[in-house]
């Protein structure tokens, strides 16, 4: 990796995003709209005394999901475009290293994910009175790590898509199982043993557990840091796998 090339690549990706004003607006506004929906869905739901409100529980996890889902999609399409328009082949004939490109995407869209979750968190905490025992900054941190994981998975999956139609189909394939099994709908401890085993190898389960730790404890816990490390580790593994899919020579 070369710091100058990495910085130029990150800047180039952010510049492309900046030119696409509508995408930026959607990135920032859609989470707010969905949080509003969830707020009014649960506003009149009774909660047992002592338990966290349903909105608090659901909104906290949604804050981690937004950047995961959106950055996965955005990255898959962006990388597919690099492949189909020939810019990827051209980049690989220049001094740019594979990791410069992959980490450039990771940093650029990771920052976009952090920005998105910051806006969504401000809305959730200020407007809808979300309350967590721990700091809102930890929520943004976990959302940012989630975004980087999503970028890494998107870069890897884009290698298996020839068309945009195929690329968007990887979203349900990669995201839906993690969403269903992360413990939001059924607590992981109450799942059948084999489902729990599947849940144990899906990185998003750890992101959700980390968010729940922030929800329940005023200070960052050891479990939370371990979970964040696992999600970050999964992101690095996915980036290495993505690097293996980039070939300088083709047929």
């Amino acid at each position: 990796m070369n710091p100058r090339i990495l910085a130029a690549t990150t800047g180039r990706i952010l510049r492309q995003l900046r030119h696409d004003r509508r995408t930026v607006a959607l990135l920032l506004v859609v989470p707010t709209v969905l949080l509003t929906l969830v707020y009014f869905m649960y506003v009149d739901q009774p909660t047992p005394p002592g338990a966290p409100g349903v909105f608090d529980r659901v909104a906290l996890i949604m804050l981690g999901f937004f950047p995961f889902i959106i950055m996965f999609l955005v990255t898959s399409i962006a990388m597919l475009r690099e492949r189909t328009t020939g810019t990827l082949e051209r980049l690989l004939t220049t001094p740019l290293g594979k990791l410069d490109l992959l980490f450039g995407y990771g940093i650029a869209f990771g920052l976009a994910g952090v920005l998105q979750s910051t806006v969504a968190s401000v809305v959730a905490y200020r407007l809808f009175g979300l309350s967590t025992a721990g700091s809102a900054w930890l929520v943004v941190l976990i959302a940012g790590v989630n975004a980087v994981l999503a970028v890494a998975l998107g870069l890897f999956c884009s290698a298996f898509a020839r068309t945009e139609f195929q690329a968007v189909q990887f979203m349900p394939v990669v995201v839906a199982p993690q969403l269903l099994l992360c413990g939001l709908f059924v607590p992981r401890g109450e799942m059948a043993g084999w489902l729990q085993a599947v849940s144990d190898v899906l990185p998003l389960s750890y992101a959700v557990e980390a968010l729940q730790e922030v929800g329940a404890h005023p200070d960052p816990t050891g479990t939370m840091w371990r979970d964040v490390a696992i999600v970050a580790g999964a992101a690095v593994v996915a980036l290495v796998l993505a690097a293996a899919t980039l070939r300088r020579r083709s047929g």
Partner: protein
Amino acid sequence: MDEAVAVHDLVVERGGRRVLHGVSCAVPRGTVTGLLGPSGSGKTTLMRAVVGVQTVGSGTVTVLGRPAGSRELRSRVGYLTQAPSVYADLTVRENARYFAALHGRGHAEADRAVADVGLADAAGQLVGTLSGGQRSRASLACALVGDPELVILDEPTVGQDPVLRADLWARFHAMAAAGTTLLVSSHVMDEAARCDRLLLIREGRLIADDTPAGVRATAGVDDLDEAFLRLIRASEADTAGKDAS
């Protein structure tokens, strides 16, 4: 060493079909060498092999004294793909500055490359809003911005107006005079006359590797178009004769 590119007995197969049948040729340093041939003759495949992005079956490609595709060649070889490969959602200037940065060049060099291809007035425009000819010139600017020693240009003048085409060819010759080696593909025969050397390729086989004057003399006619036609016929008769024996 006076050869920028030396190709020896290159065989390439794509999609189960043999595209290059043992091509051998050389590109002398500091010249503009034209790669001529009809669409589908293997021009792009040969160029991709020189740049080092083509998987080759057998044979060798040596570029600036190194095997094609070597790491250290990446800062010394510029490549213009046939379809413009620039970012449609960036401006011309942003594209040039990005590719300049990859080669360790600054904004001034990038802006000069944009001006050199006649896009100074459109520098602030998004590439996606440009005409086809402008877009391919934006792509050309990005190929030239690193001041490469060897430039591989796959049909750089398609869709350009005649005045611009003349300007671009003048620019190529100025670069060659300064020591740069250019390999330029085209299927327009009137561009062949502008080259220092010509490689004529047809159906994956090299038919001529000579100067324009040499090609004319071999074929015994003054018109290059007609000369190529005669060389093709002669080579076909040759192949047919070999097949029969």
